[in-house]
């Protein structure tokens, strides 16, 4: 069976990322930044991607990366989720990178792996692996069309755009119009992308690249959701030990203790599901079932834990000042990103042969 634990190297990686985020990604700063003109933290991206070399974890060394695997990228995502960090790691270092790993553009792949360029797959964030995508028109050698719901497009240097000729095109961000959309998740904002005769370079076939990218995204998103849920649980437990009403810490009331214990149990399960998916993506074994299982479980679990965190914080949880809303918004957006839990359950129905009811044949008149 798969290895569901963390290796010593993975724990060291976690510690390094957590140190960086502790120093550079305080919750109050994330709230302030979210409403500014620059919601993404480019300086922090430089430290993480360039300084620590983490943008290239999924890329083999001979192709300019670190030659690690989805297991290590998952650990980074856990920490980024815990800090609800406004960084394009999932979108660039996982999704765009996985798409390029299925293509043949060594130079662009190496640029993304080094962190010097940020990439974004121009597929709407809610798209499930295997679902249809909106393609732009190829006309007279240039690209035309409008795409919406593209996560982190505002900070991307290059977009990977599926076109109606079946190709995936690399398009420089400064040749298209990128307009931010007011987004539920303030820390992973969406944008629309308008292509009006944009020049593009065909890097490969869109379908297999998009499918591979979205599957990795769905599987590794579970690790981000784990980080989000862990933060919410840890902060709620801490707060309920301090907060006193009726002359007692409210965390001593059994009604609340049982709820927190249930949340802990869900986080324990979420960790196992996330590790099973990360390990499957790293080894290629049982990959489709485990990514679908992970997302079908993680999406509602992270939403529930953050919703409960807000409720258990009481009034302070409803304020803009307290960061719990950032985590709720991330968890809720994540529950739609790369396919809802329902979409992944439907995929499982086919994968594990638990088919839907067959409609009864119409009665002859």
């Amino acid at each position, binding site marked *: *069976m798969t*290895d*569901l*634990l963390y290796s010593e190297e993975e724990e060291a990686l976690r510690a390094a990322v957590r140190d960086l985020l502790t120093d550079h990604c305080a919750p109050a700063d994330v709230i302030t930044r979210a409403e500014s003109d620059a919601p993404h933290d480019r300086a922090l991206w430089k430290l993480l991607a360039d300084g620590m070399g983490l943008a290239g974890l999924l890329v083999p060394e001979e192709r300019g990366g670190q030659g690690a695997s989805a297991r290590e990228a998952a650990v980074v995502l856990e920490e980024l989720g815990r800090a609800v960090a406004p960084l394009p790691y999932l979108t660039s270092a996982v999704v765009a990178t996985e798409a390029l790993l299925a293509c043949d553009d060594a130079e662009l792949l190496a640029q993304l792996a080094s962190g010097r360029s940020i990439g974004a797959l121009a597929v709407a964030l809610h798209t499930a692996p295997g679902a249809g995508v909106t393609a732009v028109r190829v006309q007279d050698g240039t690209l035309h069309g409008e795409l919406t719901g593209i996560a982190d497009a505002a900070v991307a240097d290059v977009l990977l755009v599926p076109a109606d000729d079946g190709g995936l095109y690399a398009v420089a961000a400064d040749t298209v119009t990128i307009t931010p959309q007011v987004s539920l998740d303030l820390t992973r904002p969406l944008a629309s992308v308008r292509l009006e005769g944009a020049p593009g370079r065909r890097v490969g076939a869109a379908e297999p690249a998009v499918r591979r990218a979205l599957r990795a995204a769905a599987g590794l998103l579970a690790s981000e959701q784990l980080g989000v849920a862990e933060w919410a649980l840890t902060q709620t*437990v801490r707060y*309920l*030990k301090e907060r006193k009403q009726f002359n*007692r*810490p409210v*965390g*001593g009331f*059994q009604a609340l*203790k*049982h709820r*927190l*214990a*249930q949340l*802990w*149990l869900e986080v*324990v*399960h*979420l*960790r*196992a*599901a996330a*590790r*099973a998916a990360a390990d499957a993506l790293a080894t290629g074994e049982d990959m489709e079932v485990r990514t679908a*299982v992970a997302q*079908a*479980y993680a999406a509602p679990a992270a939403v529930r834990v953050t919703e409960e965190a807000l409720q258990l914080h009481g009034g302070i949880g409803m304020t803009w000042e307290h960061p719990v809303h950032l985590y709720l918004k991330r968890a809720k957006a994540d529950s739609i990103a790369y396919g809802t839990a*329902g979409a992944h*359950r*439907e995929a*499982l*129905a086919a994968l*594990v*042969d*638990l*088919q*839907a*009811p*067959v409609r009864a044949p119409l009665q002859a008149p």
Partner: protein
Amino acid sequence: MTDADELRRRTRELLAQHPPASTDRLDFLRARFDAGLAWVHYPEGLGGLGAPRALQGVVDAELAAAGAPDNDPRRIGIGLGMAAPTILKYGTDEQKRRYLRPLWTGEEVWCQLFSEPGAGSDLAALGTRAVRSGDSWVVNGQKVWTSSAHLARWAILIARTDPAVPKHQGITYFVCDMTDPGVEVRPLRQITGEAEFNEVFLTDVRIPDDRRLGEAGDGWRVAQTTLNNERVAIGGMALPREGGMIGPVAKTWRERPGLRTHDLHQRLLKLWVEAEVARFTGERLRQQLVAGQPGPEGAGMKLAFARLNQEISGLEVELRGEEGLLYDDWTMRRPELVDFTGRDAGYRYLRSKGNSIEGGTSEVLLNIVAERVLGLPAEPRTDKDVAWKDLAR
């Protein structure tokens, strides 16, 4: 230090000296115990070699490949999982020598005399009395939910020896001879129709003092070893995909498309995912144990499996429609084992109701998680510093 190669060598030596094909089952099991290959993490002379627990698999694999008989561990689970670790930790040398070998070979079955009608979740409130009389203790009281009591030679028993001190302090742990004339065992019929469990009435049962485990008054602490091992035993089963309760439902779903509805489909997929994630969680816990880093996750596994078993079997009864209105057999029987797969859906539905009660109710386990894992404050208590005899009952 005994490593895997050394264990393999010793196992082959055992097999060569006692070929399973031509050796009596019990003789083989005794020889295996004496060779230190019964439970390799136990000390030498007591069925083990002081080897890491994780290496037991090496021995078991060699023996299974050679077709050697096993000690039918499911039949003697209480002895192996609860009595043995407690005897090992608190027993005298004489007690360990006397009890462990026939316990492991299955020659002597063990049961557990802990719960009482008035002491369930609040086990420490138990009222069965043991009064010192010369070299013995005289025991009177009633125990309940005792599996295997009608088969057992021995019981692990906790009884009150000092009612004048607070409840946790006045308890002593004994080994009770179930063949003593003062021991009366009555089947306790349950909602499934059968009687897995018993009530045990103890009337002037004399227990020699050399069958006491640990010090007089220290029984609560001794019992913690037993109870911690019980929860490990209940939550720690290894499963393949669809190896648990979800298996029969998935099979029915595939084989009988006429039963399918959209509502059931959504619920089935949700439970299938939860069962698979619970399986990963159990597997992760086992990997932590093997790596020598036991986590607090074990406390949660029983909670998770209880809820899942109940929901899945409830869905299964509903899925079967007309057949869900039937039941396979209400006859009062006394099964030696709980067999979830050998019976129909209705049985699974009813029997799994006990999963959130036996071995610690889910409500108590949630308290344990909240207090021991999350560090939340305990409920204010009114019973801790009061003599047992002065408690409300």
